[in-house]
């Protein structure tokens, strides 16, 4: 465990970048430091590897004060990833990744073999090994940055806005990759970002810092969304924190309606039997069980269903795997107001109305409030 104990950083010009900050960073999980620009996130991170020395307070790792440890060996035990990757432009990808193992005295061959192993782990094609950084896209460079940080298998990973400079789609891919790698490796990750969405997506614990380097709140993301400590945190979470919070509720509890589903090859009796005053539309599914589109019952003629005339069904959600947020989104995107639920294979297993989702949200929130009360 990394323990930051009432640490203050005052720069020589008098700027107080971090003010009496205390944090306990649990092992083998992702702890996110989030806050507006200039609130002291980078300073905090750099105090952990002693690129910045605290003015007051102590930082310990597993009880040992880091200020007593030799600085270069401390740093080599911590991977460090920064915005724009900070790759060595004069070294090939494989040599970039092999940097720390080489510093630790590994032979060239062993370090390079390790580097190639890591390229695979972070999803880089082996053919990139002999390239130079300028020949890679921003997203690929960032992957190299992560691989380089992991090369000597350090227990701790410090990441300073690593994905801020890449476009949103690439960023999402990198975030998913990080979560996957973390599942496999279980590092102690301290992750800095100014993007609250990223913080909520990645963090096991999230520390919200306010300008002046003071801690505003330290909590798991769900708790942050349900009970922000004050108006600063609330504002920082943004206007749609209610919607975002739905990401933490499962869609499993949603009761699916199976009646409004008809296969494209249904008979007239089957279509008639599906008609129900509660469900003004029927969902037509293909022979493979996947959704084709919505239709009013009277427009469906058995044996002559024209799939191209059906209403679009929006984007289905995976029942039980996706969150209530995804289910609500699916309902909002559907022209009929009904969300299509599918199983893991994409086959339709039911439909659910906005009204039903609304009820599920209300009961989830009620439970959430209870949880928050229990927690604190």
């Amino acid at each position, binding site marked *: 465990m990394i323990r930051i104990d009432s640490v203050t950083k005052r720069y020589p010009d008098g700027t107080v970048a971090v003010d009496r900050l205390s944090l306990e960073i649990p092992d083998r999980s992702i702890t996110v430091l989030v806050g507006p620009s200039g609130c002291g996130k980078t300073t905090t991170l750099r105090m952990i590897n002693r690129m910045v020395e605290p003015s007051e307070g102590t930082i310990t790792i597993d009880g040992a004060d880091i200020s007593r440890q030799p600085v270069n060996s401390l*740093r080599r035990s911590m991977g460090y990833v920064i915005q724009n990757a*900070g790759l060595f432009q004069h070294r090939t990808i494989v040599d970039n990744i092999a940097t720390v193992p080489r510093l630790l005295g590994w032979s060239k061959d062993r370090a390079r073999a390790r580097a190639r192993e890591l390229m695979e782990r972070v999803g880089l094609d082996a053919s990139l090994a002999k390239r130079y950084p300028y020949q890679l896209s921003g997203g690929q460079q960032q992957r190299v940055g992560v691989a380089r940080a992991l090369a000597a298998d350090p227990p701790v990973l410090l990441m300073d806005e690593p994905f801020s400079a890449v476009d949103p789609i690439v960023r999402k891919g990198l975030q998913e990759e990080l979560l996957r790698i973390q599942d496999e490796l279980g590092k102690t990750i301290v992750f800095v970002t100014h993007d609250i969405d990223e913080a909520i997506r990645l963090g096991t614990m999230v520390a919200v810092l306010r300008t002046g380097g003071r801690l505003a709140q330290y909590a798991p993301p769900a708790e942050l969304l349900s009970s922000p400590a004050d108006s600063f945190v609330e504002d920082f979470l943004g206007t749609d924190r209610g919607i975002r919070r739905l990401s933490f509720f499962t869609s499993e509890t949603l009761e699916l309606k199976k009646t409004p589903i008809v296969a494209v090859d249904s008979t007239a009796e089957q279509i008639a039997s599906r008609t129900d005053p509660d469900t003004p539309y029927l969902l037509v599914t293909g022979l493979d069980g996947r959704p084709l589109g919505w239709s009013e019952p009277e427009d469906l003629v058995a044996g002559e269903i024209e799939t191209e005339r059906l209403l679009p069904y929006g984007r289905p959600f995976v029942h039980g795997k996706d969150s209530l947020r995804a289910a609500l989104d699916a309902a909002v995107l559907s022209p009929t107001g009904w969300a299509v639920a599918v199983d893991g294979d994409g086959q339709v297993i039911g439909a659910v109305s906005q009204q039903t989702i609304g009820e599920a949200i209300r009961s989830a929130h009620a439970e959430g409030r209870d949880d928050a009360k229990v927690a604190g």
Partner: protein
Amino acid sequence: MTGFFDIPSDLQHSWLGLIGLHLREALLPVLAGLVAALPIAQLCARFRWLYPPVLGVTTVLYAVPSLAFFVVLIDYTGQTELTVMIPLAVYSLVVLVPAIVDGVRSVSQETLAAATAMGFGPLRRYLQVQLPIAVPAILAGLRVATVSSISLVSVGALIGNQGALGNLLADAMFYHRPVLAVNSVVTTAVLAILVDALLVLVRLVLTPWMPPGARPKRKAAARPEPAAVAGEEAAR
């Protein structure tokens, strides 16, 4: 005894011999300048306050005309090659220090932070990260230093015939053979162009990591040399 390549015997060298002499007198000082510039530049890059005074001193040195330099040195080193080479080494130093410092400083903050975070000490970081990344800028400086050195060697003709190819200019007048002057000028220019092209080649070999098309920034610190410009054109 009147052909283009027939060199008067008082110079004690064949045409090729003069070329060898010229190259030695021009290149050894550049090498000496480089060896001295590397540690000076490292200190300047590390202790920022040191750079402005160093730059001031070197600029003043550069402003001293080469002839004045020779005259002062003759009292100490006599009419020897050394008298020619010392000023040339100083000029090279003056061109190379800013080139190296600028190159080293052009390394991005992110790259430096990454190196520090990975546990590079200052010296290792300078040698393994900053200096290699500064190679294009250093070679740009070397090109300027080398080409001006090659052209300046000729001035040595004025101090006891230590000007290698430049000595042909004096002989052209003495023997009334203008062709010798043409030989001197053309050979010096071709030499400068060839050496410059060679340095461009060295740069290409040393920096496979540079995006094609990206050219190192060339500071206007040095006096523009026609030969340097010609050399650059030839290299493209």
